[in-house]
């Protein structure tokens, strides 16, 4: 069973695009569902922490895998 309900490929994108895409993707989810985001911009780590803090969504995990960053965000 997948640990997420939707996936966003933000590889190669710089801020503000990953945040903008995440905002749109999360709007399409229901409360409790999880969005997986894969990004390559190192600034995304701080950006998604701030994103979750400001939106109230839960940052379930934030991992670095090689040159990529993987975030799991649960919609509040």
């Amino acid at each position, binding site marked *: 069973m997948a640990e997420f309900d939707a996936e966003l490929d933000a590889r190669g*994108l*710089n*801020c*503000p*695009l990953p*945040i*903008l895409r995440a*905002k*749109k993707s999360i*709007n399409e989810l229901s409360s409790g569902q999880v969005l997986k985001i894969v990004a390559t911009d190192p*600034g995304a780590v*701080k*950006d998604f922490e*701030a*994103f979750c803090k*400001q*939106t109230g969504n839960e940052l379930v995990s934030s991992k670095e895998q090689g040159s990529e960053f993987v975030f799991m965000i649960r919609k509040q």
Partner: protein
Amino acid sequence: MSKRLSAGQRRAAILQAAKALFAENGLHGVSVDAIAERLNVSPATLYKHFASKEALYEAVINATACNRESYVDAVLRGPSDFASVLRRIARTFVDSVAADPDFLRMEMHAVLEGNPFAGRFFENRWKHFADYIEMGIRELAPLGQAATVDVPSATLLFQGMLREALYAKCVYQSEQYRDIPLHRLVDRCIDLFLRAIGYRERRLEGAA
């Protein structure tokens, strides 16, 4: 810097003084002796913190890179249509640059000196706009919300206007634009840019 400072305070004071001098004269126009003189310390004190003038220059650049503009709030605090987000991220950027215009001067010197390290940094600082505009136009044009324009030229047009507005207000202190607040000048430039790319507003979603 005659009083006793902690290592962290001394390092911060060195970075601040060096930044002001690099902004005035560029990397090649500043000596370690001049930085030491500005701080009223010996060159040996500087070398305790930075191995060379070049290392100090990179540290000045890196200190700003660590404090790069965050566009998260700009994205979240209003509608998500292309023009609204562009206006908000532009305001975030110009506020940040206006608060520390030394970096505009360092950017000018870096271009003239052909410094690759600084060149990459300053290019990346503008890349957020380049990527956002490129992606925006490519997505909007097929929907009829933007004209079919040459994307690299459109990106250049935007950056050129924004950069020139910042120079006029923060570096040249131009008489011609003295009575126009920076935000209004930037908004007018963005209006022109949106017209140039044939932007047609169609809000698909409301405020966040």
